[in-house]
């Protein structure tokens, strides 16, 4: 349990850092891509809030956000903004991946639940061919914090967003064989 709490705290820190990064990179994206960044930011905010509530419920102090995060490189244009978005999502995927390894099995779910819907939200952007998502279901957090399902969703959603940003940036390979590693 303690190990899982530490991993959840690390994931919370990564979600905070992602929110900070999106706040910095969005301004460098063209208008058509900003909804993609806004959707990603909203997803990170939802996960951050879910983590804070869960850690509070289990009497584990959540980590506080840093007052300022050091970006890994200067964000000065569209290219560096996209590179940061990819890096942020890869980092978040890695922390959820680590959390997943510490979780106990969930109870079998009913036939159709939000946890089995297609990953990640559909970006609202339509002006850029690379920004159009092929997925159709919005991210919906389970009503009860189930560490296994939350972690697998967190991993999948971040990996999908990283792929989406790679597609927009024209970076290859688009996908990882084992996301989160």
């Amino acid at each position, binding site marked *: 349990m303690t190990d899982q709490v530490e991993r959840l705290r690390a994931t919370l820190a990564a979600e905070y850092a992602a929110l900070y990064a999106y706040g910095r990179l969005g301004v460098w994206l063209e208008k058509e891509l900003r909804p993609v960044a806004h959707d990603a930011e909203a997803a990170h905010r939802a996960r951050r809030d879910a983590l804070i509530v869960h850690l509070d419920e289990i009497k584990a102090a959540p980590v506080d956000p840093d007052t300022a995060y050091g970006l890994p490189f200067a964000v000065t244009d569209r290219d560096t903004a996209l590179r940061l978005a990819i890096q942020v999502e890869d980092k978040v995927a890695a922390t959820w991946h680590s959390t997943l390894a510490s979780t106990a099995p969930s109870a*079998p779910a009913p036939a159709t639940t939000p946890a089995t819907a297609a990953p990640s939200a559909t970006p609202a952007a339509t002006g850029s061919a690379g920004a159009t998502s092929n997925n159709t279901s919005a991210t919906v957090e389970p009503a009860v914090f189930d560490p296994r399902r939350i972690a697998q969703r967190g991993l999948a959603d971040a990996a999908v967003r990283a792929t989406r940003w790679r*597609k927009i940036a024209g970076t290859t390979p688009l*996908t990882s064989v084992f996301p989160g590693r």
Partner: protein
Amino acid sequence: MLDARVGTSRRDVLLSVAALTVASPLLGACDLLGKHEPPPPDPLTDFYTATLALAALYDGAVATNPQLTPVRDAHRAHAVALAAIMKPTPASNTPAAAASASAGATPAELRVAEQRGYQKAIEVCATAPANRATLLGEIAAARGCHLEVLP
């Protein structure tokens, strides 16, 4: 001399009976007495077979769309990784997988198959033991990414 030989013989018989009494269950367990009970299939067997079938579905599509090669190869790598943690280790291929190696699935068919595969991976990951959850979560995430890049 004679007494000694008789004594030895009797002891030998008793030892033999005792040895057989002890050894029979062991020999049975070792399947040396003809009793054969195959180990139960690994719980991931169906998922493994479906993963092979998913990879095979891409074989025909790759011929006309080489950009799908990394996706097909990812499914193959997932099958290899699954086989490495399964007990007993599955055969390297199955009739179901071979049969589904069709000439060319359409993009729509690939999307449907990938979506089903994603949902199945999520479902299997959710209830798997902790030591298997990570790999299954990776596979689910990879399939989600495939949906993002499919035409």
